[in-house]
């Protein structure tokens, strides 16, 4: 499953992620990370069985943890299968099959929203 960890400005300098990983022995497969002076954000994949442990460890250190379970959806009426969305997705959710049908691997979606602006036909939906 995909999760998003938010770290606020007051604790952004502390090694929260590393400590939580070591403490729980959980493997976090980090696919995106963004840190600046105001906040930190991490998108990672974690085994469902290990999720409660790492969630508790992160929360006890002041981080916020959210499950990314509302991946991208496509309105098939609006979509013209141009493929404009393909090149902007950071985790390659979109692709063409051999017959140029748009394929969506929604499990990979990290809900970043980049493709929403790219789609000329307003066919992509992300529920928040």
């Amino acid at each position, binding site marked *: 499953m995909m999760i998003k960890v938010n770290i606020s400005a007051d604790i952004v300098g502390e090694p929260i992620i590393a400590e939580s990983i070591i403490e729980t022995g959980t493997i976090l497969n980090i696919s995106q990370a963004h840190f600046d*002076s105001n906040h930190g954000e991490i998108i990672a994949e974690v085994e469902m069985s290990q999720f409660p442990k790492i969630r508790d460890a992160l929360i006890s250190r002041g981080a916020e943890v959210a499950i990314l379970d509302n991946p991208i959806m496509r309105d098939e009426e609006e979509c*013209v*299968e*141009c*493929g*404009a*969305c*393909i*090149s*902007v997705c950071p985790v390659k959710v979109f*692709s*063409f099959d051999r*017959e*140029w*049908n748009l394929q969506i691997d929604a499990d990979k979606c990290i809900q970043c929203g*980049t493709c929403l*602006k*790219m789609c*000329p*036909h*307003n066919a992509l939906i992300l529920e928040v």
Partner: protein
Amino acid sequence: MVEKSIKEINSRIEDGSVNVVTAEEMVDIVADLGADGAAKEVDVVTTGTFGAMCSSGVWLNFGHSEPPIKMSKIWLNEVEAYTGVAAVDAFIGATQLSETEGMNYGGAHVIEDLIRGKSIDVHATAYGTDCYPRKLLDTTLNIYDLNQAIMINPRNAYQKYNAATNGSNHKIYTYMGTLLPSCGNVTYSGAGVLSPLCNDPNYETIGIGSRIFLGGSQGYIIGEGTQHSPQNNFGTLMVRGNLKEMSSDYIRAATFEGYGTSLYVGMGIPIPIINERVALATAITDADITTNVLDYGVPSRDRPKLAEVTYEELRSGTVEINGKDIPTSSMSSFKMARKIAGELKQWIKGGDFFVSEPVELLPKNTSCKPMKQRDRNLLVKDIMSTEVITINQDATFHKAAKTIVENAYTHLPVVKKDGTIAGIVTAWDISKAVAEENYKLVKDIMTKKVITANATDPVEVAARNLDLNGLSAMPVLNSKQEVIGIVTSDDISKLIARRQ
């Protein structure tokens, strides 16, 4: 030498013996039978394309009101249409934006809503005359209430499109879609192997009066399009069709984030195979069609070319630019292009569509000139201040603090030893370093992501970047990335005030 007349081909359509294939299927046929054999075998090759065509619109005639009005301005669902012609004629253009909804709704959406039979709110004003006394009109109507709804697209179906990427360091929003920084993606348009004009590049069969597939109905080419520039393979078409017969499967409104609205138009052109030269031309493949990848990060008419690629490469999903594999996106739909070529093929096979002899072929010798401008194009280097104080990235942060205080600057461009830009350090970065008791070198505390201007950028571009980023000044770089000046919003406001 095989020679076939349009009349002969049409009689085969009539009696059902016609052999029609799509331009995709034709590739193998010519490979197997040769141009000569293919020309004997095949009568018509169908093409198709489905992509954004901004230069599209519809002439509408509303009929006369009682008392009559000579509209001087008109809005359809709050999108303005052009009515500087007779009393109740108006042209709704695809890219005109709604006065209330902005980019979310435009002329293209009005056109799609008309095709879908939806009601449209009409608001018109006039100055009133003896023969047309009415000054104001508000009504609601749909496509069935109109006398005519005739699509006239001044420039469609470019023979070739440039592909786009973005060499700048920030994301940009264009009519080629979202372009990620540092050449993060490449976008392109056009149907490659199925592209109409690429399959008859010498315009041997295409011209005024050619019957075509347009938006799901039978339309016509009425001449070369605006900016038709065959000498460098940028031919274009002007086309006409009856909106009342079109389908929203093939005419779709679109919004390009940060750019505006456009209309996706489905078009297919049948190429009658009148001789083997024409047959050979229709054997063109994606690998035969090349295009340039231009840097849209440079907001100029003359965008630098970063690579030359084929449609085969573009459609493979990645292209190589400077040794890096860059993901590609098509802005037009190949699947729809294929559907259109297939549908046109069925129409011809079924005897529902006859090919036509053009009254005149498209011109082959015109070119497209740039605009003649009266004002001199002012560049950043003409107005920048060259008295710019910079600091070396290896200087101590104390020195940076001192320079800032002494010169009363809030932003200090940071340079490497060779004078090229490394970042920017602000009074805020310094205070933060003090707060964190982090007394390091400038390079450790500076902001690496710095918005800059190029000395050769037009002033309008610098003004837009200052605005978009909420900045008051930007360092100016020469082509070697060296800091040679600074441009401020003050300089620009003064300039604009002078011009006005």
